[in-house]
């Protein structure tokens, strides 16, 4: 029997109150709690969009990620660099604030799939953004993002980034 593709196994859709959030366990309590208590409010208030991976066979929520916009202050650059930037002193960015996979679904590359789903979703947007940022909620989650060749910062180890150019080049 051939393995079903992830796109057949899972529907990726915006979170609504119909999704079962209370049984979500990913191994990081803060992320579980976020989906259980905060995610729906955030999406209702339009401060973040929350996408869930729903198992097409059981309707169980096996993963989620959040997207929002962010401004990155660029107020401490040397003048020589600042001059070259189009929208100094703030850069428009897309922030992937959280990404998590249910323990029942780990080891199937659902995390990679969700990350690329986010890329494919934001890349064609007709809005100005230059940087795609991810926020690893703690150090243990950093290696996950490093697999995808994100660029790291020198001081801020919990954020990693890609330029929109680099992301577009991935799909070209």
């Amino acid at each position: 029997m051939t393995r079903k593709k992830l796109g057949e196994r899972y529907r990726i859709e915006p979170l609504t109150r119909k999704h079962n959030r209370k049984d979500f366990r990913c191994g990081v309590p803060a992320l579980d709690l976020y989906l259980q208590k905060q995610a729906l409010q955030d999406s209702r208030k339009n401060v973040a969009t929350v996408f869930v991976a729903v198992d097409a066979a059981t309707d169980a929520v096996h993963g989620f990620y959040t997207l929002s916009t962010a401004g990155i202050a660029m107020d401490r650059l040397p003048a020589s660099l600042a001059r070259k930037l189009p929208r100094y002193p703030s850069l428009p960015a897309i922030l992937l604030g959280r990404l998590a996979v249910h323990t029942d679904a780990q080891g199937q590359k659902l995390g990679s799939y969700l990350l690329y789903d986010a890329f494919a979703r934001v890349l064609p947007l007709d809005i100005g953004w230059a940087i795609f940022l991810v926020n690893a909620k703690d150090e243990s989650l950093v290696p996950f993002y490093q697999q995808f060749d994100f660029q790291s910062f020198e001081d801020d180890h919990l954020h990693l980034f890609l330029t929109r150019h680099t992301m577009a080049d991935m799909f070209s």
Partner: protein
Amino acid sequence: MSVASPEMKRLEARIPARIKEQLEQAASLAGRSQTDIIIEAIGGKAQQIIREHEAIVLGRKDQIKLAKALLNPPKATANQKRRAKWYLEESGS
């Protein structure tokens, strides 16, 4: 070998007498300076607020790194391209 101490700046604030008394009491109980306790308390709170608002505050070195990446964006790596192809196949798009 000396350890460089972080740059310090002065903060002046008026606080209610009751809080000041508590601060003095706490400092004496913990055997620490009032300044230490203030730094610990507001540092944690400020970090929490920043986190809640998802504000991205980068230091100078990191801003420079980001600016340089933007001005000279790297090409996608073979790994990134292979994964993109994998995603497109898995998603059926």
